[in-house]
């Protein structure tokens, strides 16, 4: 009998826990569920242009297009990641790391995106001769599953 009560209590308790966060009258603004918005045409166009520029070695132009896009959607983690990729090609390794970290800060639950950011960070560290740091970054990439 006591066992039954206890099991019942666990169930009720579980329900109670689930119900718990009833919002008060004065809540914080709800955090945005994900920062990655649907890409608008302007962003898509700039991103395409940036990729084409980067592919043909016009890295400054690629970066400029990505910055234009970021002025429109500063919370778009894909743009930050693309910029990190350009910075890596430019040999700006410190900027690669921090820009990829910025991408991570807007990535929300997108683990694929995060893993790619960590791989970029690993490449930047490797290029700077920080082998241990690179390994740690690759491990972080593997954890994004």
């Amino acid at each position, binding site marked *: 009998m006591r*066992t039954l*009560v*206890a*099991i019942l*209590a*666990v169930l*009720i*308790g579980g329900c*109670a826990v689930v*119900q*718990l*966060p*009833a*919002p*008060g*009258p*004065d*809540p*914080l*603004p*709800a*955090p*945005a569920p994900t*920062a990655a918005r649907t890409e*608008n*045409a*302007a962003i*898509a*166009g*700039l991103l395409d242009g940036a990729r084409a520029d980067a592919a043909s070695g016009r890295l*400054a*132009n690629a*970066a*400029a*297009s990505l*910055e*234009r896009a*970021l*002025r*429109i959607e*500063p*919370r778009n983690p894909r743009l930050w990641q693309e*910029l990190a990729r350009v910075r890596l090609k430019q040999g700006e390794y*410190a*900027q690669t790391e*921090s*820009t990829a*970290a*910025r991408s991570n*800060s*807007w990535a*929300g639950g997108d683990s694929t995106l995060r893993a790619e950011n960590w791989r970029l960070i690993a490449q930047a560290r490797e290029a700077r001769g920080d082998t241990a740091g690179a390994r740690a970054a690759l491990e972080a990439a593997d954890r994004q599953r």
Partner: protein
Amino acid sequence: MSRHKRFWRAFRFALLAVALLTAGFMLYLDFRVRSEFEGRRFALPARIYARPLELYAGLRIARANVLDELREAGYRDGAREGGSGWFVREGDGIEIAVRPFVFWDGPQPAKRIRVAFDDSAVAAVRDAEGRDLPLARLEPLPIGGIYPANNEDRVLVRLGEVPKHLVQALVANEDRNFYSHYGFDPRGIARAAVSFVRGNGRQGGSTLTQQLVKNFFLTPERTLQRKFTELGMAVLVELHYGKEEILEAYLNEIYLGQDRDRAIHGVGLAALYYFGKPVEQLTLAESALLVGMVKGPALYDPYRHPQRALERRNLVLRETKDRGYATMEQYAAARATGLGVNPKASVGTSPHPAFLELVHRQLRRDYDEADLRSEGLRVFTTLDPRVQGAAERVLERKLAQFDKEKRFGAPGLEGAIAVTDSQTGEVQALVGGRDARYRGFNRALDAARPVGSLLKPAIYLTALAEPSRYTLVTPIDDGPFVWKSRGAPDWQPANYDGKHHGAVQLRTALAQSYNAASARLGTELGVERVLATVKRLGIERKLRPYAATLLGAVELSPLEVAQMYQTIASGGFRAPLRAIREVTTQDGRPLKRYPLAVEQAFPSEPMYLIVAAMQGIVREGTAQALKNWLPPESGVAAKTGTTDEQRDAWFAGFTGDRLGIVWIGYDDNRAARLSGAAAALPVWGELMAMLSPEPLAPLKPDGIEIVLIDPESGLRADADCTGAIELPFAQGSAPVERAPCSSALGVVIEAVQQRAKSWLERLFGN
């Protein structure tokens, strides 16, 4: 030897000496003419541009703002005339004939676009054929220059670009025999003399060549010797150069008026300045007005003396016709037109001198001052004319209002504003004083003023970075606080309301800006550690490690404060504030980019917590009055600042897209008797409300959990607690203890759960 012979010998010697001297002088003049004329390049100012407006579907901007920007850029309203440079309003939209422009990343041809609007946002952008355009970039507004000596400004033109009727009107009125004389014109001089004797007033007998020489090489004094030098040089110039070269130099050199402190030189700039069009497009009447101004740009200023300028123009037209350069019909048609000058207000060397100064300082790190003033560099900046205009207007209006209410007499209150893009660190607006046009003391850059409570977020951020010791609800003692240090008087900060509030939650101590609690917390953490946080936030100035520094006994400029708050606004990613994006040469070759750079100065978790606490300042603390301008959903995070005797009123705050810093006070440091909340907050609120801000909604990092808290006790709440609030905590740092308000059932259940757990553990031997 006879006396006669001796005389002739002396005479010949004298003659020879004079001839030698003259020859020597001419040789010297020739050297000067050739070296200076040949080596001469017109000094061209660096031209500074605002950010280009980029139009795309979804951009939050009202149609009126786009219209303002087009008018500011000199686009003509209403008529589809000419290839570009006009707009037509149609229904809710605008059709724009965008001018061609050479951007940093290449030339963009003229194009026609249609922009549709709905509810103060762009609904669609289409090309002339009705196809959707993802993005359309308008040419950026010129916002001034960095000028050569005497603030000379000019836009170089080639002779071939100048309309024939302009050259003809010039020759007919200034130097009829230009094409036949050798630099000076005896007939012209005679004519001038006759005219003078007859009492028809003074007429210059100077040829165009003489005028050019005078402007190029000589000072404006009027002596006989100078006149001779001028004559000699004019002849030499004619000897060395063709009429066309001389004419082209003249057309680029001639002084044609004054725009405040900026000197308008050359017909290229004059055409743009007076008529808003390139010189090629000048009509006969417009050309005649410019030619008429050669005699006296101030005397015949079409803005200040329109009637006199019109009469002068008509005189020029008649002379042009009389010399056979215009037909009777052309003359009559030109005479019948009005002055037709641009209504554009004068801007001087810049309409926004405070921002320009920031640009100039940033440029000086990479360029020689001489190059900036002569090479015609094109500088593309981050200035947003809409934000800048709004900031200037709000500051001017509010300060006038405060002055009236306070009646503290002259000189009135002063202020400064800095607005940046909170994510990229681009400076969108900078106002250096209430008269934004005045190129004087730039308070946004150079007024270092005590910042008061603006430094407090650094104390609380230092604390929140240590979640095992401090959370948003950790009790802090606000009782009387005395700081004793050897060799310094005791420091005992008082609260703004003169009271002490006992134990308060950390978030409340910041929200209410309690001094005693903040000082206690700051000294508990260690002054050096807090100052290290300040430094990481981006303050480069060395701060003295005194306890009083914690409460803002430290002087910073509004721009420095902006740098510090930018790091908070962008979630711990410090981005150096930038005013420049790109620099190109005169003909558009890219020279330098100033790329977006970020550096992670703090992990995301404490930043999320401090921003939540600063949102609390607006929701329930010292910045509550902001609700008069922005709805609670905006989620603004901010901090007020007030210094001793209310000498300085500060407000620093950010939305989802912009950061703004406002300072208000007296230059002479009088007590303003205005708090940050009473003076700086309304300026900030009114400004941001005009800019349709994006709500602030930071993304919750993984290491943060949201917990329901009873605001009274700071303990864990549940559904039964009325008025419970959600607060963020670093994972595992939230209070475990339940608030008294939480349901009795909850407590019972917890006890039962605890028992069940131990029972299960026993059962499974765990």
